[in-house]
């Protein structure tokens, strides 16, 4: 079975890759169909994931493990939201109330805690370790914060130039990251096509 899955994965990948290089009508059609199938599987995977999440939380609640109450709450929330969403739709005001009253504030609060945590971490950075990189990081962060900071006195003169200048380093780093990501993605695809990696199971 493992061999079939591996072979199927390889064949499909090759067709899709070939569709990128060869604009042949059937090949393109095949590529589209294979991609459509992948989309469907991905969509179903989300449902499966949600179902798996609910099951785990239920198991935790059933086993009376630590955090089991949170699990049952999660499951209930899931069910209610899912039900209301199916019944009323996302444009329903209740749905919008749920989203605006619960989801967004919760996540926004988490984002605020993150902000405080980052500030606290910046404060204690030099206490934990005092080295060049930590100091540079801290200094650059402060500079950018300062350049972007609105002041009651208006914008800081030369802020844009400074930002573009310092942005050059960031953009360069970003490019490097993007190239690395791209190369990694390419290598991962080739590994899958070659059957080295089998993320679909069996390893």
């Amino acid at each position: 079975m493992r061999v079939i899955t591996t072979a199927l994965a390889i064949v499909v990948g090759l067709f899709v890759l070939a569709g990128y290089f060869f604009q042949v009508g059937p090949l393109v059609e095949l590529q589209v169909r294979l991609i459509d199938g992948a989309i469907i599987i991905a969509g179903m995977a989300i449902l499966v994931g949600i179902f798996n999440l609910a099951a785990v939380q239920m198991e935790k609640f059933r086993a009376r493990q630590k955090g089991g109450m949170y699990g049952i709450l999660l499951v209930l929330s899931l069910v209610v939201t899912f039900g209301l969403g199916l019944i009323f739709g996302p444009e329903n005001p209740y749905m919008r109330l749920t989203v605006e009253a619960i989801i967004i504030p919760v996540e926004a609060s988490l984002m605020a805690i993150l902000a405080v945590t980052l500030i606290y971490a910046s404060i204690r950075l030099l206490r934990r370790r005092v080295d060049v990189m930590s100091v540079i990081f801290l200094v650059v962060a402060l500079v950018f914060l300062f350049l972007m900071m609105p002041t009651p006195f208006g914008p800081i003169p030369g802020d844009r130039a400074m930002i573009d200048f310092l942005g050059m380093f960031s953009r360069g780093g970003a490019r490097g990251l993007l190239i690395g990501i791209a190369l990694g993605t390419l290598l991962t695809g080739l590994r899958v096509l070659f059957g080295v990696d089998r993320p679909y199971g069996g390893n």
Partner: protein
Amino acid sequence: MATLRCPKCGKNNPDLLEVCQFCQAPLKPDSVLRIGQTPIKKNTGELEAVLPDWLKNVRQQAKDSAEEETQMPAQSKVEKDEPPDLLAGLVSQSSAADDDDIPDWLASINPSASLKPEAPASTPAPESDFFAQFNRSEPAPISQPPQEEVSSPLEQPADQTPASTEDELSKWFAQASAQPEEIVEIDPETERPGEAAWVSPFDAPLRSQQEPAPKEQEDLSWLHNLEDASKQTGELQSPKQGADWAQAFETPSTPSEPSRSQEDLSWLDNLGGIEESPQQASERPATAGDDLGWLNNLGGTVESQPFDTSPAEPVSAAPFTSGEDLSWLNNLGGTLEPSQPAEAAPEDLSSSQEDLSWLNNLGRESGQQFTPPFTESTSESASQAAPAGKEELEPPDWLKSAMEVPSMPPPGDVSLNWFTDKDQPSEEGSAPVLGTPQSPPFSDMFSAPGEPPSTASQDVDSLFSVEMPDWLAHSEPTADVPASSQTDFPPAGSEESLAPVDLPSWVQAMRPMEAVISETGASAEDEPEETEGPLAGLRGVIPGMAIGASMRPKSISLKLQATDEQQASAALLEQILGSETNPRALITSSFIASQRVLRWIVAGLFLFILSTVIFLRSQTMPISADLPLDGDNASSAVVRVPANGKVLVVIDYEPSLAGEMEAIGGPVLDQMTLTSHPAFSFVSTSPNGSALVERLVSKTGIDQLGAEYHNLGFLPGGAAGVLGFVQGPGEIIPASGVGKFSDYAMVIVMTDHAEAGRTWVEQLHAQRVRQVDPALSSQPLIVLASAQAGPLLQPYLSSGQITGMISGLADAARYEFMNGTRPGIARSYWDAFGVGLMMSIALIVIGSLWSLFTGMRARRAEAEQG
């Protein structure tokens, strides 16, 4: 003839002998006297067969000479130039023709040979004989009967031929041993005439020896010397018959003539050395012939008058019956004491067999080098006589003089050290140290028979000047004394196998010094007594030490020997090593508490300040109108959207950043709505995106502007979904209302993470490159990104894959300011945003400095502690 092998020396001896003729060891076990046994008296006549041949010859010669003496007058001493052959008797053993050489005196003594020399046995002349002077008066009832019996057999063999000497001697010895031990009393009256008489027996064998062969006569030359000396001094009277001296030997202690006339061979009894039982002693009458008390007197005088007395001290000799006759002998020695009167005769003249023990000792202890011929036999008889407990006799004068220190050392004095050794331990105080060993009293007599008279006198002098040994000086132990002397020995422990030992005097004489004995005895007494085995009853045989005690190795202590300083150092090292393994308590502040307080403080400040600012709706901080280039491009693209065109808006951010995103997207969507009245199609690649569309639309107010929007929902599949949607939006999401993706006049991607933006950018570019749809190449793509995603999407912007991008609240505020501050979301966050940034910067700076200082101090403290 069968031979017996001596167990001691290993030499062969005729089976007739009971004692080895070489070492005098008993050949037969029966003849061995064992510890605890009482010596049994035996007739000396039985021992005649034991006598060696040479002795037999001597005796025979003596007999012959005695016969000749009686016939011939005293003859002058034949001077011999030749040195006396001390071993002449031994030489004559091999020849059977030496029977004629037996001296008369010996022959007269021998009862078997008494047939020949009847004269010496009968005549009373032996008073002048040498040995006659030793005849002492004995108690008549004791001595007389044996004398009579002994005399008769002694008389008989006087005329016997030498050929039957051996038989005669054996018989004589047998008879002598059968008779009780008697002291030979020397009749003083008979001594004088016997002075020569005693010599005559000695001379007789000499004379008899001269005839057959010179070498055989040498053994009696000493007698001749003595005779000559005595003649010169004039003290020597005519020799008596040979039987006289024999009678002197044989006569008992009683001065009676019958006793004197009888052959006194009791000394021979003493020579046998076998102690007879008292019954036997009583049975065997003491005959005159066997009365050899004179010899006992020799030993008995030693006991009564110890030899250890100084030579100058007069030794009270027992009065001889013929003491006056032998006074010349006293004068010969020079140190000879004057003969005591006969009145001293009544003194105890008990001659016991033990008195003759000295003769035994003479024969045995000096036997290796030189033993007088007759001392061997005398030793036996003396040993026999010793335990009999005869009456002690005073030593004759000549013997007394022999106790004195000789003027010249006698020959062969080296071997006689025992003499001196015995004297020393018995002495108490005044004991003359015998510097030179002394020869036996009679050794000189035998040593130089051929010397001239002057030398003879010197020899006699030296002869009689010999110190009497201790054992000889002391009284001979009687039968009781041996028993008592045996008590001196360490007491026998075990009575199982051994009885208290009563050693005879001759055995005692052979013992080492008393001091040694006493020492060993004392030390032995300390030792434990053996209780079993062959050594039962003995002490000191086995050292009193546990078996293996000496073999036990010394226990070696395995403990390390260390001084106090070393131990202290070891303890210190151990403490140091122990501290290495023990965890060291770190001195640190409450880290967790300080972190929680600081976070609360920071959070509180931010909440309070920012809430206040927001609540106050402050808009004091000015916004710059200088839009970045990317913003201008985005603004330009928005303006060029055709009217009533379709715009795809991709909602790909999280609800956590909805506020920022709404602030950023509001002015762009508002401008687009105001300018183009497009139809917005909202699609999301996240599940929450669909829910955010409404919020966006409401917050931005575009719905109020009359804009159309469609919420296409969730687009699954990630990049594949995007690819598929790009390739055929109607196929992926049929509600999109478009046939191809190029139908969208603009694509706006609103994302808070670079991944989503990257995906859209890459998929669209791929489609553009493939030129599947050439309209895709002119389709603008605007990215509305948060401040955290903007830097990562800048490359795409720089590469032209993205038409315009508005990144963060700052650009949104500027864009909104340019758009007339419409919707105004950004403007409301601008002051709080500014204050927040300023607080953040302040907190970071101050906190970092404080942390730096505290960190340095903590590290310094750790360094000091470590």
